[in-house]
């Protein structure tokens, strides 16, 4: 399955991926509308910054997927292709998945009281990972490995 991979050599910590992700998953049809009136939609990708090395972190859609196993509400599921996604209508915001994810890839949305996680943009209008398209330095790629 094609997944999103990050190459820390080229990550500039510009954080554009976060904004493209948040906008793509906000339901709004433009970034300006997504962030209108001080709204701060939660991105499913997060840049970890160090003094020399930076990289973006998002769900690896791992084979073990402890988040799915631990989900108390049955909100997290794995598709036939292996995409781990969250049904936000079912999510109760308990945070079990956040604790069980070994990669720290799941993000709480405090306002909506649900979790947000990367689903490779399969459900939103973007259709292809917005972080990959928005990265100015090819530090994030979407490929088969």
């Amino acid at each position, binding site marked *: 399955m094609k997944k999103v991979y990050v190459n820390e050599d080229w990550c500039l910590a510009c*954080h554009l991926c976060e904004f493209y992700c948040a906008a793509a998953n906000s339901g709004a049809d433009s970034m300006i509308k997504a962030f209108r009136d001080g709204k701060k939609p939660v991105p499913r990708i997060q840049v970890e910054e160090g003094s020399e090395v930076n990289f973006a972190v998002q769900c690896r859609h791992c084979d073990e997927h402890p988040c799915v196993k631990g989900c108390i509400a049955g909100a997290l599921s794995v598709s036939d292709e292996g995409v781990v996604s969250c049904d936000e209508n079912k999510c109760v915001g308990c945070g079990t998945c956040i604790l069980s994810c070994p990669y720290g890839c799941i993000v709480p949305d405090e306002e909506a009281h649900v979790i947000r996680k990367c689903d490779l943009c399969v459900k939103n209008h973007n259709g292809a990972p917005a972080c990959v398209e928005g990265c100015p330095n090819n530090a994030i790629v979407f490929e088969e490995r």
Partner: protein
Amino acid sequence: MNPLYEVVRNPDRCIKCRVCERQCANEVHKYDAELDKMISNEMTCVDCQRCVCLCPTHALKIRPNENQFRENANWSHQIMDEVYKQAGSGGVLLSAMGTPKQYPVYWDKILLNASQVTNPPIDPLREPMETKTFLGKKSQKITYDENGKAHYEKTPYLELDVPIMFSAMSFGSISKNAHESLARAATELGTYYNTGEGGLHEDFYKYGKNTICQVASGRFGVFKGYLDAGAAIEIKMGQGAKPGIGGHLPGMKINDEISRTRMIPKGTDAISPAPHHDIYSIEDLRQLVFSLKEATNWEKPVIVKIAAVHNVAAIASGVARSGADIIAIDGFRGGTGAAPTRIRDNVGIPIELALAAVDSRLRDEGIRNDVSVVVGGSIRSAADVVKAIALGADACYIASAALLALGCHLCRSCNTGKCNWGIATQRADLVKRLNPDVGYKRLVNLVTAWDHEVKEIMGGMGINSIEALRGNRLMLRGVGLTQKELDLLGIQHAGE
């Protein structure tokens, strides 16, 4: 002093993502938490357009500052600013890239021919079209033995799949990632890039067969392994942007890698002398040409690069007789990482006139085939390439255009070392911004596109080989040029 530029931020579009703030090495943008607003300090803005290009909501615009001193045709805003700057610093003004002054661009005053009716044009998509070029001495005499086998003097040469090479830019003046992009692009394109006077980084020896190794007056990074690594050796006598002076890489840019590559102590200024201290005549130049040939077992062609100056034709004639295989001429609009402003803006002559003069002179003296002629110094498009070849060049050097392909926006601040595009900088966090995987593809795209255009233009003329275009000045006509200019260029006026 007033800021040169004004940052215009559209509040309806700005989402305060702070990308501009993170991407500006000049620290123009800042988020003010108290105001919950992005604010700008325009004093340090160089109009590199990095923030504009990366702003995800296109909220930014950089405009020239509308504030003006009292209008004066003689004392322009810029001239007054420069006086203030020097009154404050007491120093020589430095500038980067090619001169922005309004000198005539003769390429834009030359028009190309096309075939109609009697000599039909050729469609390059349907018929073969040759842009392969060989640089080096062309054998004057070919004899055939009784079996029909040709015999001629074999001399080393360069084989170019496209008549375009990447001009000299040193590791130091540009970043390692920029060099890697050029090296990989040259390899894929079947052409050459040039190390400049900064030596060859140990990681790039593998691109040796597409590398021209430069030997300049400072002799930085020159040793046997370096000379052996490349496909050709270039002796740099002068540079179009700063004829008569040598390069200067400030000590702050000499980090571990550059110090190792240039073989100079870390943190020391790398100052190339104005002359080669062992070259004061054509005979001296001949000695260096032959020394370099001897050192590399007579296997590599030697290029001599000169700046286009007043007596360029006579100088080129001397260079041709010095044993060099290729002469590279750099016009005064050529770029640089740093040059004294007054020299960049006032010294040298246009490459078009220099090329025409050199080609004519070498033909008149019957030594044109002893050397190939490569020209650089602001070759901006495929049309410039075609015009240069028709004026008599064998190939072109491009550098500013290559940097544009890598993201350069010609803000002309290379000398500050804070290139936001990761090109003319050695700051690790900025160098990272140029990913060679992206950069080399863009260079390949650019040159491939130009090659297509060269073929299209040649096809229109009914010419199917670059050899038949070379020096074919009948394909050129001038517009709006004086008789003197036409005579110097050796072309007729449109309508003639």
